[in-house]
């Protein structure tokens, strides 16, 4: 990895240059909540001033720019006795500016499922490879436990990564494209003093984490505690509303439906992101539901996050962003559930 220093004024130039000919998605303040806390989302921006890189977290993850909530897998033209199938993938580049380490880790996990495993998804890969990603370091967000999952720092999966050193950014350059884009503005070489400052900043961020979750031995524990009362306790609270999966940066499950136009001349096979907490997730043709209970569905969401995914890819699916915990009106959250499961063992 190469490193450079970028003055904040130059960074602004860089963003303006990118804005001139590209779609740019960045954190934007969208309001304040009932307690006065500012709320942010990753949204398309058209000027530098709309961007707020000091954001704590976003309510939604960046995944929807890679896995849209709704997407046509194919379209059909019906023509008397025949039909014709058409498939299109994204070709337009997009700048993803200001992603935190957890969101980049989430993409790396999605890569494992959707780009590297059996049946790589051309829909995902086309979006992923058309994304120019600029990450940024940040103070730990409230309730975030990414440090426990090793996702608080990131070494790949981005083009550029910024660490705020006050007047300037310390820039990690991970790709050739990142390097070439950076050539468009003035940068400085990194001195020993800068490196020391960078490491100090990193350390102070590391030390600031408040929430810790013990995920050790969790795959085994989840098996042992499959019938645990813990699931009844939390399952009874679950609204089965799917909000957790919608905001989760790594939930990728979906459902497919088909639509036909009113003139019956065209149709589409539509993919919609789903949630394993929704009541009909495992209902088969004929009506049998393999998971009719809330607690079973909730349990399986955790099972996939912390056991199933580990079995397949040697790491949990969760990145510790706690967006699911924050969005849940019933206050169901991973740190508390995992703590309960760990307590059962004593």
């Amino acid at each position: 990895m190469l490193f450079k220093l970028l003055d904040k004024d130059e960074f602004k130039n860089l963003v303006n240059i990118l804005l001139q000919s590209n779609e740019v998605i960045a954190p934007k303040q969208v309001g304040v909540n009932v307690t006065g806390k500012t709320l942010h989302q990753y949204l398309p921006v058209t000027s530098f001033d709309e961007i707020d890189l000091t954001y704590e977290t976003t309510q939604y993850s960046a995944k929807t720019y890679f896995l849209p909530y709704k997407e046509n897998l194919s379209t059909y033209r019906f023509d008397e006795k025949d039909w014709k199938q058409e498939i299109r993938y994204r070709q337009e580049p997009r700048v993803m500016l200001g992603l935190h380490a957890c969101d980049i880790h989430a993409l790396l996990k999605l890569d494992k499922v959707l780009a590297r495993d059996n049946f790589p998804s051309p829909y995902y890969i086309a979006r992923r490879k058309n994304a120019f990603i600029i990450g940024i370091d940040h103070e730990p967000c409230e309730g975030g436990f990414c440090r426990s999952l090793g996702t608080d720092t990131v070494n790949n999966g981005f083009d550029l990564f910024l660490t705020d050193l006050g007047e300037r950014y310390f820039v990690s350059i991970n790709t050739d494209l990142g390097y070439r884009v950076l050539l468009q503005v003035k940068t400085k070489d990194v001195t020993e003093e800068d490196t020391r400052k960078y490491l100090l900043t990193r350390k102070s961020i590391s030390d600031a984490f408040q929430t810790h979750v013990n995920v050790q031995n969790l795959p085994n524990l989840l098996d042992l505690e499959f019938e645990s009362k813990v699931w009844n306790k939390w399952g009874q609270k679950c609204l089965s509303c799917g909000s957790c999966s919608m905001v989760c940066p790594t939930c990728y499950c979906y459902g497919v439906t088909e639509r036909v136009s009113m003139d019956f001349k065209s149709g589409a096979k539509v993919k919609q992101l789903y949630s394993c907490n929704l009541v009909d997730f495992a209902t088969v043709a004929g009506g049998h539901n393999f998971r009719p209970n809330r607690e079973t569905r909730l349990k399986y969401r955790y099972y996939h996050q912390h056991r199933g995914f580990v079995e397949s890819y040697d790491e949990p699916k969760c990145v510790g962003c706690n967006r699911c915990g924050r969005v849940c009106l019933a206050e169901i959250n991973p740190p508390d559930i995992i703590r309960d499961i760990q307590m059962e063992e004593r």
Partner: protein
Amino acid sequence: MRYLSIEPTKPKVAVFDFTSCEGCELQLANKEETLVDFLKAVEIVNFREVSSAKSDDYEIAFIEGAVSRSDEIERLKKIREKARVLVALGCCACYGGVNKLKNAFDLSTANREIYGNYPKDSMPVRAIKDVVPVDMEIPGCPVNKEEIERIIQHLLLDINYNFPVYPVCVECKQKFNVCMFEKGQLCLGPIARAGCSAPCPTGGLGCYGCRGPAADPNYDEFFEIARRRGFAEQEVNERLSFFGGFNGIAMGVQK
């Protein structure tokens, strides 16, 4: 579908209104971009709002509105006898709708309050399915034209019309909305049935549950959330009874 060698029929459709605002049937004439195709697919033989035709020969009857007068019962039964398929159109037809708020009052007092010295024939409001069997329901206030199209496609060619049974939250999240509770507002999203694409929360108004309850709603937890967030029982219960879909469900009442 032609490619399957299955030819669509062109069914005769009638639209009837009962106690309602007639907003749902107006939706039938909405969505200009596909209106021509829609009207090509069916033959409308009786629809007071758009046509002077008044045929009694129809296969599909769309019923808007609830039943609130004795003469409506007779009329509805006659329609049921003639129609092969009866579709309840909109919240009033499916659940009673806002009309049903009347049921909480003494009828003669309510009658006097509204009509003064000229009282009208009136009875407690009932949903269509409480009077005659209903084959299909399109909930919502108003209904979504796209769902009417899908029902028609289903009746013509067996095309799928699986309306969602999960809560509004799913669709609200897919609109990137900030949760209404986060903004300090009451919202029935977590227990109300989706399919509307959450226009109310998207526009800044908490959900009123016009499509009725989601499948297997978690009322206990929802009331707990409302309590924790400082909403009074009365406010929650008023919201629940607004469209009549949450019959018999109330906060602070033991089930």
